[in-house]
């Protein structure tokens, strides 16, 4: 077996998985829109004209054709799928622009917010997890571990409005809305960082507990290393690896969260695009956004999957060492949904 052959054998299934996720997402959204009662073209027209009863049949047919919604269900499905393969996500029913154009125009704004939120969320949870592991007082450690449910439970629209009220209106430090100035990205990012950080924290702290129970930590402690040194040198690095796989879950939260956050802060972005598309009953735009999110998600999964052996030497092919069970590679969705891991741990069930 040549080197290239081995690499291909490793990469091919993952690329196939990527293609599958995109195809399945398209199929699920297509079915949702078609199986549910309601004609998207009629609905969009009704919103535009304010009255659905006076639709010109010719105009309707033209619009259907333009949106790729003419012909039988199977024809629509196949023609849209064909278009998808060439990177065409269809045409907006409300604006007549192509969906790809509309999305491409607003992506940078959302990326800035989501990226900053991811950085803030992950950094904060690493710091909090560090404190929760080495704090000398038990009550503080318990308190810190209790924080994440709160981060998930507070709705983003409430966090955002409170942040606006405090930092924009009371203190006058940061802009309350818009996307023109650079610092307008800070408050939306902090708002999104709460749930994202909370989820990451839960995955991370579970990984830390697992690492703490391992033999190498026991050895390090037996050698007489201090708590901070054990954490920094042994626990942190080993716990970060499995946590990387939760990035898919986080991307989902970020993408969903932008809808609310961009509305609260009146920013241009993907979420705002979706909200105005719902208002205009513009189904093809929402479908396009969902597919783009799925592509980003699947791409992240692919990258994590492929980079995992680079990060973790134990997973490199050709090494004689057996693969550790804990460092499982990226499945389509992180298996242990952070919130449910306590309730669905298969080990708990089996050990009972």
């Amino acid at each position, binding site marked *: 077996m040549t080197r290239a052959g081995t690499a291909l054998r490793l990469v091919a299934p993952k690329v196939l998985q990527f293609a599958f*996720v995109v195809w*399945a*997402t398209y*199929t*699920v*959204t297509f079915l*949702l*829109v078609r199986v*549910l*009662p*309601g004609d*998207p073209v009629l*609905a969009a027209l009704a919103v535009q004209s304010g009255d659905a009863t006076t639709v010109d049949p010719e105009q309707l047919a033209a619009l259907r054709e333009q949106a790729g919604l003419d012909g039988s269900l199977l024809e629509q499905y196949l023609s849209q799928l064909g278009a998808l393969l060439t990177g065409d996500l269809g045409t907006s029913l409300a604006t007549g622009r192509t969906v790809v154009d509309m999305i491409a125009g607003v992506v940078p704004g959302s990326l800035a917010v989501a990226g900053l939120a991811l950085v803030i969320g992950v950094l904060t949870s690493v710091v909090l997890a560090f404190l929760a592991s080495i704090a000398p007082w038990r009550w503080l450690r318990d308190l810190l571990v209790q924080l994440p*449910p*709160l981060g*998930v*439970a*507070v*709705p*983003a*629209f*409430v966090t955002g*409005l*409170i942040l*606006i*009220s405090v930092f924009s*209106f009371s203190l006058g430090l940061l802009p309350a809305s818009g996307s023109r100035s650079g610092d307008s990205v800070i408050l939306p990012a902090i708002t999104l960082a709460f749930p994202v950080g909370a989820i990451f924290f839960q995955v991370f702290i579970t990984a830390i507990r697992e690492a703490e129970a391992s033999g190498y930590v026991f050895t390090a402690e037996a050698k007489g290393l201090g708590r901070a040194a054990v954490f920094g040198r042994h626990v942190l690095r080993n716990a970060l690896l499995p946590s990387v796989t939760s990035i*898919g879950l986080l991307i*989902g939260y970020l*993408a*969903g*969260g932008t*809808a*609310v956050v961009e509305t*609260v802060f009146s920013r241009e972005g993907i979420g705002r695009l*979706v*909200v105005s598309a*719902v*208002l205009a*009953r*513009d*189904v093809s735009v*929402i*479908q396009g956004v*969902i597919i783009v*999110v*799925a592509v980003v*998600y699947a791409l992240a999964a692919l990258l994590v999957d492929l980079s995992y052996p680079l990060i973790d030497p134990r997973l490199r092919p050709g090494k004689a060492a057996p693969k550790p069970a804990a460092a499982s590679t990226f499945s*389509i*969705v992180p298996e242990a*949904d952070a*919130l*449910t891991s*306590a*309730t*669905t741990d*298969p080990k708990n*069930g*089996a050990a*009972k």
Partner: protein
Amino acid sequence: MTKLLRPTTLVSILVVLLCVVMAFAPQLIAPGDPLAGTPRDRLLPPSAEHLFGTDSLGRDVFTRVVHGAWLSLAAATLAVGIGGLVGGAIGLLCGAARGRVGTAIDFVVMRFVDVLIAVPGILLALIVVATLGFGPWSIALGVGLGAAGSFARIMRAQVLRVRGEEYVEAAAVLGVRPLGVLSRHILPNAARPVLAMAALELGTAVLSVSAISFLGFGVAPPAPEWGSLVSAGRDYIATSWWLTVLPGAVIVGVVLAVTRLARVIGESR
């Protein structure tokens, strides 16, 4: 029993009971009319008379929050019901079919379930709302379909786990028909984690429903609903904090209580 007596658990149970009362008999807690306002009393801060203050039309916010519980909680509960039924059925069938006739079916269906879990629930809900039209019930359907994936996965895992237990094998050997085994032995034993999942999803559903209502796709005004209450307070955030913070705090309290109970249900005995 002892874990039911822990203070946080007791408070959570109390909150959930309070929610039930708010949803079914709001008059018991807030006897006033949620739609009637006194324009003279507009934008009053919280006081003994108006616990949560009043809004821009002089309506009592506390009364509106209590009366809004029905729509918010009913839509969230319906969403979990839909998700549980659809997802549970899928998971049950896949789990039961695996290893017999349908290993391939199981594989394909579960990959679709993975995708359903991966796509952000709120986007799925929004595409349903855009197709069906606005209102709390289409939100419930959308949020429910978004939750179906998680239910399918956990149900399947449980069915597969229970199927390997001795008592199920014993029942099959004793000649109990497959459907009988399924309903009498597998389902009851798989129910607990599914129930914990349902409680957890209820919290998520309350958040999603109120978020979509906040965006303006829920019930038409003036009917009260938690998300739209927060949204209505948005214009007064600089001067009247209670319009957004207090209904928001109620949402947080309910979600925390439900999540806490999900943990308690899910803890192994």
